[in-house]
């Protein structure tokens, strides 16, 4: 009996003991303290825990924490906070209150680190902090007609030049800005050039996931551009397969994009035909078109992921265009100038990026492009027959030019990740330019073996301080000269979302082919950039101010002798403000550029403000999508003060300014709407757009007659451009499209 009860009692006590063990291990001990970062700033929300247990607490808004624990003896207390390095502290827990003050160092991370931004505008989704324009913006900018360059012109630094294609950046000529796709140079980024009319860019915005508009101080990976680089990165594998079609009075197009089931590869192609005959029938043009502008464009793409997480992409576009236009001859109004152009362009780009392991990455680019132009320029009488007048300054306009330019290139860039997130990058490129021209019967050939080596490092000293240091070596066999261009930029974070950057760089460019056909006895033109900027970014707002000074040396002179004796400089201040926050549903940006530039180049008798530079340029872009009616309305207003124009006349041994002036101010209000709907099973976007809504008179400059007695304004071929079209696509998972603000 006794034994039994004793046994029972013992059982009870064992059970009691087992249940109570965790609770009886001792009284709770309080642990308190604070959490700060290395600069003494309070860190709220840090998690503090006795390692291996559940006991812990969170630091409050004053950085303090306090919790109780049952743990005893030697323990480790850990403090963690996202973005900071975790700190462990050994303690011996007895019975007394323990106080620990943690100091958590910042972790250098891509997410928080400052980005070197002097001189560049990044567009796209890649880096959230630097996003200023997304590819969607290209489609929804009023009056831009989905032309990338037209949208870039609404950013500070770019001029509103309407009489020729190209980006005229900070006092630089159009040919001083170059475009790159997936790292390799694009030789002919615009449709073939027509006198006094700006051509569109060749590439559809939908091809690119990101665009960086660099107005100076850019990376050593890019060269041969004195003033600007437009760096475009093509999209990877699209999300879904689709079939698309576009219909308007101007163009008809169809496309197919097929994505493999495993989403590891895709291929596709598009074809488009544009003919302006019908449009010109309705909207009168100033030149008389005897060959209606007619364009065929086709493209092909193939993309595949590699096993090691890399990507191979092939992209090719084919374009052919034909047009002919007549204008009155400026020297003799009874005569006409007839200009006929036929262009053929084929562009190929193959790129391969991959991880080589061990922190190494590789980017390979191969490119080949060919561009053939047939230009036939005639002096014609009223019966449109070719005539010769016996006056050389008129008869000079009777000519044929056939040109062919080929570019074959290969570029390799290797990246190695150093400690933290610092990266060293180096590589080289080889380009073979083959340019052939036949002027009347005079043949000329310009082959150039162009080599470049480059190296640069992105150094993150702390999260708040980063540097990009690089250099580029180039050699052109055509002019048989080499150059070394150093580049340096620094960025310092001054506060939350705010940073300052400075950049310095030397940029070289060989003379344009036009001049090289006469002589190859040239050196490089050189620009030295100094840039300082300040950016304040929040997710929905961006403010940016940038000042620059640019010095030009070795600019091409064509008179009295062809050489590099030209020089000049440019300075200015630019502002940018984008806001998606203040007015709900309204997205707008404002940019302003002040430019003061002079240069002595070509046949300028002295340093002059070039004809492509306005002192003040401003743009206001506004877009609003109204979900209720599924329609977006977009307005763009651009303004520029008048640009100078000159009549440079040869007088004895020099050119003199026989006449000069400034054009009237430039105003352009562009509008577009896009209505999203469905037609049958197709997802449809109806787009309408008008340029120069207010019908403002636009004058881009003046042409002079040979004797200087007559001057004629250079104006757009028609004051306004209208577009109405329907874009259809099938096979898109429409539910993911255009999800509105209400979520």
């Amino acid at each position: 009996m006794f034994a039994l009860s004793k046994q029972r009692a013992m059982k009870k006590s064992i059970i009691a003991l087992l249940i109570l063990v965790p609770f009886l291990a001792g009284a709770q001990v309080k642990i308190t303290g604070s959490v700060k970062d290395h600069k003494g700033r309070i860190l709220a929300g840090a998690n503090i825990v006795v390692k291996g247990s559940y006991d812990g607490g969170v630091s409050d808004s004053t950085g303090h924490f306090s919790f109780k624990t049952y743990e005893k003896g030697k323990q480790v207390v850990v403090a963690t906070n996202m973005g900071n390095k975790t700190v462990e502290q050994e303690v011996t827990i007895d019975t007394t209150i323990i106080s620990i003050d943690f100091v958590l160092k910042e972790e250098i991370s891509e997410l928080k680190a400052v980005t070197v931004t002097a001189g560049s505008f990044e567009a796209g989704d890649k880096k959230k902090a630097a996003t200023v324009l997304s590819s969607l913006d290209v489609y929804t900018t009023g009056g831009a007609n989905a032309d990338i360059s037209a949208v870039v012109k609404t950013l500070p630094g770019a001029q509103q030049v309407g009489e020729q294609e190209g980006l005229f950046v900070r006092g630089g000529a159009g040919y001083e800005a170059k475009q790159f796709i997936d790292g390799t140079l694009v030789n002919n980024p615009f449709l073939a050039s027509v006198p006094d009319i700006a051509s569109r860019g060749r590439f559809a915005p939908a091809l690119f996931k990101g665009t960086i508009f660099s107005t100076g101080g850019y990376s050593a990976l890019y060269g041969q551009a004195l003033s600007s680089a437009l760096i475009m990165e093509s999209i990877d594998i699209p999300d879904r397969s689709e079939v698309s079609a576009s219909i308007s009075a101007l163009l008809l197009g169809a496309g197919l994009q097929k994505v493999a089931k495993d989403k590891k590869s895709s291929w596709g192609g598009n074809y488009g035909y544009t003919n302006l005959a019908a449009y010109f029938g309705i909207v009168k043009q100033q030149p008389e078109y005897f060959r209606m502008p007619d364009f065929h464009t086709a493209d092909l793409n193939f993309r595949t992921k590699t096993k090691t997480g890399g990507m191979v992409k092939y992209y090719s576009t084919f374009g052919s265009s034909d047009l002919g236009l007549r204008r009155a001859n400026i020297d003799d109004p009874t005569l006409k100038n007839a200009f006929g152009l036929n262009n053929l362009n084929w562009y190929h780009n193959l790129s391969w990026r991959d991880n080589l392991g061990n922190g190494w990455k590789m980017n390979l680019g191969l490119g080949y492009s060919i561009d053939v132009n047939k230009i036939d320029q005639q002096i014609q009488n009223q019966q449109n027959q070719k005539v010769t007048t016996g006056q050389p300054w008129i008869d000079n306009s009777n000519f044929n030019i056939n040109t062919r330019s080929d570019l074959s290139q290969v570029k390799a860039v290797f990246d190695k990740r150093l400690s933290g997130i610092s990266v060293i990058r180096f590589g080289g490129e080889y380009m073979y330019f083959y340019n052939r021209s036949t002027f009347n019967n005079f043949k000329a050939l310009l082959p150039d073996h162009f080599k470049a080596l480059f190296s640069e490092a992105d150094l993150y000293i702390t999260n708040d301080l980063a540097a990009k240091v690089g250099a580029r070596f180039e050699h052109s066999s055509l002019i048989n000269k080499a150059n070394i261009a150093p580049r340096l930029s620094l960025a310092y974070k001054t506060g939350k979302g705010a940073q300052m950057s400075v950049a310095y760089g030397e940029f070289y460019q060989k003379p344009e082919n036009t001049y090289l056909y006469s002589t190859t006895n040239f050196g490089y033109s050189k620009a030295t950039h100094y840039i300082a900027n300040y950016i304040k970014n929040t997710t929905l707002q961006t403010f940016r101010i940038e000042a620059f000074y640019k010095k030009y040396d070795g600019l091409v002179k064509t008179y009295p002798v062809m050489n590099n004796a030209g020089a000049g400089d440019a300075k200015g201040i630019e502002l940018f403000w984008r806001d998606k926050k203040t007015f709900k549903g309204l997205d707008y940006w404002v940019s302003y550029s002040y430019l003061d530039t002079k240069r002595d180049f070509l046949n300028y008798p002295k340093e002059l403000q070039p004809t492509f530079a306005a002192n003040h340029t401003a743009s206001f872009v506004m877009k609003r999508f109204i979900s209720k009616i599924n329609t977006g309305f977009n307005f763009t207003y651009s303004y520029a003060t008048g640009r100078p124009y000159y009549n440079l006349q040869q007088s004895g041994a020099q050119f003199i300014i026989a006449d000069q002036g400034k054009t009237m101010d430039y105003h352009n209000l562009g509008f577009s709407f896009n209505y999203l709907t469905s037609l049958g099973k197709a997802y449809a976007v109806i787009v309408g757009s008008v340029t120069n809504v207010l019908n403002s008179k636009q004058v881009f400059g003046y042409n002079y007659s040979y004797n200087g007695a007559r001057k004629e304004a250079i104006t757009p071929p028609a004051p306004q451009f209208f577009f109405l079209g329907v874009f259809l696509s099938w096979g898109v998972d429409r539910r993911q499209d255009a999800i509105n603000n209400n979520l």
Partner: protein
Amino acid sequence: MKQIIIILSMLFAGQLVAQTKYETGMQKGLEQFAAVKSVEDMAAASAFFERIADAEKDKWLPYYYAAYANHLTGWMNPKADKDKVAEKSKDLLSKAEALERNAETYCMRQMIAIQQMTVDPMSRWQTYGTEAGNALAEARKIDAANPRIYLLDGQTLMNTPEAFGGGKAVAKKLFEKAVELFGSFKPASPIHPTWGKDQATQLLAACQ
């Protein structure tokens, strides 16, 4: 004999205690979670789950709840930097995913992506909208009977314009399906996710 019994019972009890520690910890966390009254409470609940997760090392659920509670702080505080909240939610969720990828973790991916999309829907739907859609597709592949998939899908569609295949009519069908599935839904354990039934019922009512 006595000794054997003691040893055995101690072993048994020891195991019992170890198991209970996790479960009681989780229960306590879920109670704390249910009683949340402020953003700070929610953040504290998230931190508590994170502590359990870090201590246990091999359990996905506490990381899942830590991510969920953290995600909710982004909605509770209208001034929150949703990108920053989402970064942390993703960080916690990826730790759960490293242990187990299931319909619940994919649903959480979708919720985080949608939260980030709402920061700037016009320019973000292409990336985050797609990410959200892909996450739900994966969830459906693993467990098509999970009611939260239909709840989340319905929520997204309810806020999508009719022209793009959204609207109340389409969403209603999904909420109906969600409510139906919630009716028969049995969580794998008392601490597995069960949330969403009330929400589905309310949203269904809002679609009528």
